[in-house]
């Protein structure tokens, strides 16, 4: 259903070309930032991938801020204060995400210790 809605919006926006910043370095920053910001009305797409109006507005906003001289961190903080943690596709490390970020390392460590006894001791 959502995909269908998105498709209705697909290409209904003629001004794609105007989104791109003239300076390639600034544009590259905008693309990288766009990967990290979620289109908040979509299911699980970044603002770069989404065809929704909302995502386009966000893309334009990011570029506007970049051309005003904002740093990447400032833009992410701005988006976060406006829309909450939900907008960050890479969740910040904080009390409710310690587990999310810690679990891979924890798993690697615990499983590593657990498989150790399977190796034959050198002397045998």
């Amino acid at each position, binding site marked *: 259903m959502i995909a269908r809605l998105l498709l209705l919006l697909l290409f*209904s926006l*003629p001004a*794609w070309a105007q989104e791109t910043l003239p300076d390639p370095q600034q544009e590259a920053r905008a693309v990288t930032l766009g990967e990290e910001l979620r289109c908040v009305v979509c299911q699980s797409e970044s603002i770069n991938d989404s065809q929704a109006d909302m995502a386009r507005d966000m893309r334009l906003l990011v570029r506007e801020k970049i051309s005003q001289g904002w740093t990447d961190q400032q833009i992410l903080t701005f988006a976060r204060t406006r829309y909450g943690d939900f907008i960050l596709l890479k969740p910040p490390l904080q009390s409710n*995400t310690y587990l*999310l970020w810690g679990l*891979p390392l924890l*798993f*690697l460590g615990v499983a590593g210790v657990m498989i150790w006894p399977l*190796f034959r001791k050198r002397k045998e």
Partner: protein
Amino acid sequence: MIITLGHFAVSLALLLSLAQSIIPLFGASQNNIKKIQIGRGLALANFVLVATGFFALMYAHVTDDFSVVNVAMNSHSTKPLLYKITGTWASHEGSMMLWVLILTLFGALIALVPRDMPLVLRARALAVQGMTGVGFLAFILFTSDPFIRIFPAPTDGQDLNPLLQDPGLAFHPPGLYMGYVGFSSVFSLAAALLMTRDIDAKWAKYLRVWVLLSWGFLTFGITMGSWWAYYELGWGGWWFWDPVENAALMPWLSGTALLHSVIASARRGALLRWTLLLSVITFSLSLLGTFLVRSGILTSVHTFAVDPERGVFVLALLGIATGGALILYAARAHQLPEGTLFAPISREGGLLINNLFICTACATLVTGTLYPLLLDALGGGTVSVGAPYFNATMVPLLLPVLFIMGFAPFLKWNKGDVRNALANMKLAALLMLTAIAAGLYAYGNHHIIGFIALGAGGWVVGASITDAWRNRDALFANAPRLLGHLGIGIAVIGMAGSVYNQENAFTMQVGDARDVSGYHITFDALADVQGENYLAQRGTFTVIRGDDNVTLYPEWRFYPVQAMPLSHVALRPDAMRDLYLALGEEQEDGKKKTHAVRFQIHPLAPWIWIGGVITALGGFAGVAQSFKKKWI
């Protein structure tokens, strides 16, 4: 009449599955061959019954029987025949029918092959397969009945979402389900091994062919899904870390770990417990995937809470199957044979270290996919876990796997020699450096991850070629490893290319020419075309770079029944890149009629899917070996 017959057949299958879950169990414990044979007959009968139901539903779809709600909701008389056939499994109810069809197919296969399987093992595996069948047949009949009729029948149907009206629907879901659900056979056999006393450590060989078969199909299904998303969804990505994609990747990762440990168990009698645990986990992850995709929980935790019937049902099945198997494992694991130990530097050692990384990656994927749902459900706040999280965690976890998978095949079983193995890595090192140098030359020195991936792909491809040369007299005997590893190496090179994608979007009108990313594009003509059930504007574009001159025909389609537009992209793949051109809807811009155009260059992209298919062939080669050994 036929649809009623189908409904009856599926209802009867539920009853017979119940018998299949009980009778062979008694047969095994009483050593009663007659009861075991009854179990085999029941498994075959259940397959025939479910197939009857499935083909009855397909018949209703093909003959436009709109008195069946499922057909009325998902079909239309003008829909092309191919999509009437594939439309059988395009809806929730239909896809669950496909799920159970494959489940009972694997049940029937366990009943028949391999011929030398110990009777008690076969009996218990059939019973467990029957239990899964009971759960999912009940799920279909009580929550997702595809045979419900409507009276009076509507004059025509509501048609199928045009996105699904694509040949991809013929390959992707059946391939994916053959893998996903195929792992039920591995689960059943692992449970049967756990129920059987005094087993030989090498009995894991009875798991091998089922793992290879399911894994081969799962690899194929995921590859087809990725390709379909790439060209049909119209925005040119091949992997989005979308929860639905993750749901298929989870059992693939644990299945990959299982594939390797089952080899160590079958050949060397090592790692039997680990193999059995992974067998249980892999099918549990298939069930978790089914839950995530079928419950609607991904759209929102809240919509799930509003209409929880289906979700709770699958969740209960997941809990019973996983919980039951894990309890069985906990009760029996310590009685299993110890298995042989091995040196850290050995073939088994390499397999195990890679298993460690692959399982960690799998656990990370499960965590990342479920975390936002659980956190929200527990009131811990709303966070998003998307591509940047998975790239940051999965890539570092899987890169060592690529390094080790090139190296480990040159280590001997039990105890290997590093120096000896390193001597075989010359071509791998050469291709790694060549790939990095070629990348630097073609794309400049930005995006370090691109070079790392190119180098890793070159390393694996080089190692596979060396491995094949070393085994040139026994290619068939080593085919699963050779094809599997080569395919992964090739796919990784293709994936590396996507770091250097060039995406351009602009507007054009007929007659315009434009220079983009080194290509000269001309919009030559625009024509109205009438498809079988859609109208389209077809653009003719000439794309020129140097001597390379191609004509591309992207379409902007409109499906009147669903009033839905769809962009049909034009692709031109070659060895180095894929050119990708999408045409947008016509815009009135003053007096001019312009079109949004998206032109993308995807370096090396075709190799992603070629590599995926080669990898899948590795799994099938292993199945062919079992055939040849007259196992079957």
